[in-house]
């Protein structure tokens, strides 16, 4: 490594190594420095992610308005929430949304990755094209869809009407409003496409060659080779999507419908926001969050059982 040799005379006489105390020796040692590199990330996530997420669980058993000190109320918050029709409805909406959006997003990501996986000049720009909606700022994305889905002037209904197809009222009717949210979520699958593309590249070409020699058709090699190799990646993607796709409903439901019509788009994050920052019922909001944690955990366990996964997906 000639690069390093020319480098070393400048870096070897480290002033810190001269210092005899242990802190100095730690800072000068390679392993010590490596740990210091991790410090901002570990401290930062402990303060900004771990502590808030864990403390929320404690808050769930208190009454707290973020001003006067919390008082212990036991399970009251949970009882109130489970008795509240709105909380139950928002959980129902969220689950329905997840059951529609997550599988469709997964199929879309894999399908598009299969279509665009080939090497070649044309495919680079096409990959960039399908990734574009994913990087549109969510506030702008919600506005764009509010325009696209506008039943009178929006381009979607103009297009459908022009083709002689039915023109639904989209965000005005409860069931089409929920479907609109699913539709919107199907365009922001760039992350999934990339993961699937990378996963597809891990499959050695020789495997397909061998399958062809054995007389396997395209369809068969997809089921026997492609899908099994992709499986751990897809599983990881599914788990991540379960978390991300629901939290991503916040901005559109906040901007486009504010939960309407008739609470059809009141998904869990919006209700959480209302509980905490409209009513300042931090205790109730925390309890609702805990219920959501539990439901997500149940879904993950359910999927793991369904797939019959014995060993953890290897992400290392």
């Amino acid at each position, binding site marked *: 490594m000639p690069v390093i040799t020319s*480098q070393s005379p400048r870096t070897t006489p480290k002033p810190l190594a001269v210092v005899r105390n242990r802190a100095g020796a730690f800072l000068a040692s390679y392993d010590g420095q490596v740990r210091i590199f991790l410090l901002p990330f570990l401290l930062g996530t402990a303060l900004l*992610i771990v502590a808030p997420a864990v403390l929320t669980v404690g*808050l769930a058993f208190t009454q707290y308005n973020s001003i006067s000190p919390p008082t212990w109320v036991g399970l009251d918050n949970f009882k109130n929430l489970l008795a509240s029709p709105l909380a139950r409805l928002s959980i129902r909406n969220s689950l329905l949304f997840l059951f529609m959006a997550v599988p469709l997003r997964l199929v879309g990501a894999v399908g598009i990755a299969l279509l665009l996986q080939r090497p070649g000049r044309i*495919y680079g720009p096409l990959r960039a094209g399908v990734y574009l909606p994913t990087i549109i*700022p969510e506030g702008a994305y919600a506005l764009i869809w509010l325009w696209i889905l506008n039943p009178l002037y929006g381009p979607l209904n103009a297009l459908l009407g022009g083709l002689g197809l039915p023109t639904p009222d989209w965000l005005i009717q409860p069931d089409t409003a929920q479907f609109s949210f699913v539709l919107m979520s199907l*365009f922001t699958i760039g992350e999934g496409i990339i993961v699937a593309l*990378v996963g597809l*590249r891990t499959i050695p070409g020789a495997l397909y060659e061998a399958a062809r020699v054995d007389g396997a058709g395209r369809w068969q090699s997809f089921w026997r080779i492609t899908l099994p190799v992709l499986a751990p990646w897809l599983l990881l993607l599914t788990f991540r999507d379960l978390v991300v796709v629901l939290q991503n409903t916040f901005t559109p439901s906040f901007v486009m419908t504010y939960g309407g019509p008739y609470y059809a788009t009141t998904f869990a994050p919006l209700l*959480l926001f209302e509980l905490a920052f409209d009513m300042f019922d931090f205790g109730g909001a925390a309890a609702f969050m805990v219920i959501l944690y539990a439901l997500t955990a149940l879904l993950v366990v359910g999927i793991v059982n369904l797939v019959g996964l014995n060993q953890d997906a290897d992400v290392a």
Partner: protein
Amino acid sequence: MWRKLGSAARIAAGIAVAVLFVLPLLWMIVGSLRPTGLPPARTVEWWPSDPQLGNYIAIFDLLPMGVYLRNSLIVVAVAVPATLLTASLAGFGLSQLREPWRQRLLIYTVVLLMVPAPAVWLFRYQILSWLGLLSSLWALILPAFAAGSPLLVLLFYWTFRRTPVSYFEAARVEGADAWTSWRRIAMPMARPTTAAVIVLAFALFWNDFTNPVLYLYRPDTYTLPVGIQILKQVDSTNWPLLLAGATLVTLPMVLLFLALQRQFLHDDALSELLDRG
């Protein structure tokens, strides 16, 4: 013959899908260029018949968009470099750590990825209020010093794990410290990852709508995504105006993405992601 036809069909299908995905963006831009005061078109406009920039001037007259734009720029100017630094250092640290801590912290990072954002809303509000940072741009910038998102740390980690260990070993034998290894060996070999992380970090901070809504209440601290929502409250049916606002927020992000995407979306970069040295 059939193979050629098949690949032509594949390209056609690929183009059709890409066009479908670009359509929302196209409709946004076309809609924003419509002359102010003109009634909405009754058929689909694929291209503006009389493109005008009036709406872009109008949004700056109607609201202090300049202030929002400045705030957004300050946030990304601080947060994106900070994220790049902390995420790459953490990813490098993780890749150089000895077992069993490497595995333990890796699991920690993957678990962080699964924490839903709303889970931290309540207490982050509380922590920011204790630190006196509510309704300051620091409320938005702070996560940058924790690498922005665990995903970015993992991206760097996966890249550095594929850098042959012997490179780092050799540097160590030569007496290079970890800082030098990171700067001289690790980072220069991680160009596609760096490009991807810049795009993702910019998206994280520039596009952020939720955090400003939660933690900012003084109008002089609002960022662009909040600004275009105020626009909607001011003039909720003036679509060309609203789409001009949406375009204003979207364009910098799209341009940055288009400038850097070749680095990580073209064929070699995708294979490079997998070359285990």
